[in-house]
């Protein structure tokens, strides 16, 4: 663990280039435990790429990622998940043929203990054997997780619980996004990254999502949020970071950032293509 007031997550000079394009350009960022920082910026600003760098799905060309005082730059996504970093995906990546329950259970995968003994070399074979034999310890663990997941799904009211055994591909778009968030919560994350959780949602659904994120924050979860809906960003964020063409162009409390001429220009300069309310539904 780091010093008492060291940030939970801190990025220094994070950079990722794609050919001639610098998608993320020297980003610095600090996120305190229990804090919520939002990242906004026009389409193509590099927000999702930044998430990929933090979660290990992509590797930076330069710069470092620190999590709880440890350098985690370039670690695999599997290891980062095990360390408590969970994310949702902008375009939605639920497991289409898995039921809602199974989707969310995958979220709890890193917390399996009884069926995944931490034994080197023969660990995987033991896992296979335990999965087939299913002694009572394994069954109990599975049962406990299932109960826990029902509790997580209950946070979404009657949206998901009645559909718990339906395959995810049969859900509405908004429900699939909810399944993704439920899956992330099942990991018991220490850091949660949400990539446009309200994309494609109508105003009432957005309001519901906003309430949920506020609750999560109140429970002490540390959150990094990408969001185009400024209304929500202003309400929830401790701090807002504005990105444009890979660079951080402004940072500060929501209201201050909103009035920043550079920010306004960044949005206008892109021909309004990235006006905050517009969705890049794909």
């Amino acid at each position, binding site marked *: 663990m780091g010093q008492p007031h060291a940030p939970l997550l801190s990025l220094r000079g994070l950079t990722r280039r*794609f050919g001639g394009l610098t998608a993320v350009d020297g980003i610095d960022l600090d996120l305190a435990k229990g804090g919520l920082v939002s990242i906004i910026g026009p389409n193509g600003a590099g927000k999702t790429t930044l998430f990929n760098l933090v*979660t*290990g*799905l992509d*590797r930076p060309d330069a710069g470092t990622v620190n999590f709880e005082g440890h350098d985690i730059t370039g670690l*695999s*996504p*599997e290891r980062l*998940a*095990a360390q408590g970093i*969970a*994310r949702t*995906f902008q*375009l939605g*990546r*639920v*497991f*289409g*043929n*898995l039921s809602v329950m*199974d*989707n969310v*259970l*995958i*979220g709890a*995968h*890193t917390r*399996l203990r009884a*069926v995944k003994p931490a034994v080197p070399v023969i660990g*995987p*074979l033991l*896992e*296979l054997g335990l*999965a*087939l034999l*299913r002694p009572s310890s394994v069954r109990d663990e*599975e049962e406990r997780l299932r109960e826990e997941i029902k509790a997580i799904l209950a946070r979404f009211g009657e949206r998901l619980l009645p559909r718990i055994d339906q*395959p995810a*591909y*049969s859900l509405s778009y908004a429900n699939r996004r909810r399944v993704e968030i439920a*899956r992330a919560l099942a*990991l018991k994350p220490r850091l949660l990254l949400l990539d446009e959780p309200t994309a494609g949602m109508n105003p009432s659904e957005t309001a519901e999502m906003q309430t949920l994120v506020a609750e999560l924050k109140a429970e002490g979860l540390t959150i990094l949020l990408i969001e185009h809906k400024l209304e929500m960003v202003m309400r929830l964020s401790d701090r807002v970071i504005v990105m444009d063409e890979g660079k951080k162009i402004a940072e500060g409390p929501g209201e201050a950032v909103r009035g920043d001429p550079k920010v306004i220009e960044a949005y206008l300069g892109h021909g309004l293509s990235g006006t905050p309310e517009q969705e890049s539904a794909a």
Partner: protein
Amino acid sequence: MSSWLDYTINGLIVGNVYALVAVGLALIFGVSRLINFAQGSIYLVGAYIGWVAVVQLHTPLPLTIIFVAVAAALVGLIIERFGLRPLQNSVRIAPLLATIGISFVLDQLVMLTFSPNPRALPSQLPDIRFQIGGGTIGPLDLLIAGVGISSALLLFVFLRYTKLGWAVRAASQDRDAAMQMGVDVNRVNQTVFGIAAALGGVSGLLVGMYYNQIDTAMSLQATLKGVVAEVVGGAGNVPGAVIGSLLLGLVESYGVAVFGTSYRNLFAFLLLVVVLVLRPNGLFASARQAPPEPLTGTFIAPSRPVRIPRWALAVAVAAFAILPLLPVSFYILQTLINAWLLGMLALSLTLVAGTIGQVSLGHAALLAIGAYTSALLSLTLNIPVGLAIVAGGLMSAALGTILISPSFRLRGHYVSIATLAIGEIVSLVILNWESVTRGPIGISGIPPLSLFGYDLISPASVYWFAYAVMVVLALLQSRLLGSHLGRSFRAIRDDDIAARAYGLSLNRYKSLAFIFGGFAAGISGGIAAHLYSYINHETFNTQQSILALTVVILGGLGNVVGAIVGAVALVGLPEMFRIAAEYRILIYGIVLLLLVRFRPQGLLGTI
């Protein structure tokens, strides 16, 4: 041939021929992100059309070439229009399976029309050789080089300076953007398939003339070689495909020079595996490119499995168990024994291809490993047959998983290429490792099935044995699917990126799937070895891999009951209708095509 120069010339000439196949593959991959497994079949068709032209119509050489190019292009256009275009909006696995099915249908049609026996294809050129340096070169070599170079030039001019060529390039750079700019993707696809087929057909003709022999086995070899060259050069990269082909030709030629002819293909496939592992985007791609497969979109069709009540399953299991007690013919038992063996293979493949989404085209290699292990252990070490079969299963699980592990980093179509190549490597090693496997002679006198010292001689006892083993494997697999591993496998299949982001290690879970599946396949191979009493390197071939794949698709990907139902249907129905053996493969190919088109989720649905 003796000198290094000769081997170099030979390598370059053969490379030139591969280039004609590989360039077509690269063009097609470029615009439709599809590896066309039917490319070798077009090459085969080209060779036989050439034979008809030369031997029966006595056309002069230039006319022969044009005739073959036009006829092959027509075949390509038909494939594109009727085989692939209807699948444009379906899941990614569909066109892959379709080209496999088309390839089987074309090969069988050629075989049925011309018989499987090799034919001589005279070269129509004077048989003289010119001395250059320390080597010699003949007119046919020059012709092949000439055709290669002029096709490359024509293609370059077409792609660079014509409107349609520009559209092809645009579509291969960014298909969606090209469509928005008004590029007619269907026309681009047609063009590309036409060109690819014409080149492939001419290549078949030239190879036939070069070796003065054509036969139906050429097809698979050509597909494999073309794919190797294309992947080495970087999928979708046309100049890369040419260089990859020449490199492949040279590697093979030098390999033959040093180790002998039977090692030719081994070098090709090892080259492929090395490139896939070290540089999956090809030798010339920058190391960190976006992966060539789209990241989103599901690989397999969503569906709801058909729920079969437990009591119905129990009744069915019991009914088949008491079948030998009823007055049924030996012939029916024999057929069902074959179905149970195929069922075990299908269980294995449905786990690997269906549950975890690794569409393996080399699954017969697992049978071979199990069969050879069990046969050799019982023959040379006198290990009891029952134990030897289990050892075969374990060996297949272990060795199969190790061999396949280089492909764990790959996705989609690449997995299929890698498994196809690894399957070929296994059969080549069996052929060449004479001290252990007895090479081409094969293993005869394998002891019959026995259990606890009792030989299983009567058809009923063999039936019960195979049936019991299959039912136990099926029960185990169902239990596996119900565990956390079942959902982990399926999650990796549906979206491996999201799966990794939630802590699922692809290596770990793909290994476990192959270990479990390898065991079932190895057991099946082991039982088959003792049943047949003779096996060789061709006993377990690609046809069986494709048959198993058809069974799996028919039953529903990942569906345990479906795998068994599919096996009974595909083994049983042709027997019931007394369909002659040579038409069966054709029917399997057609069944595969129809399924992909009309019922991609299979009879009982994907799980």
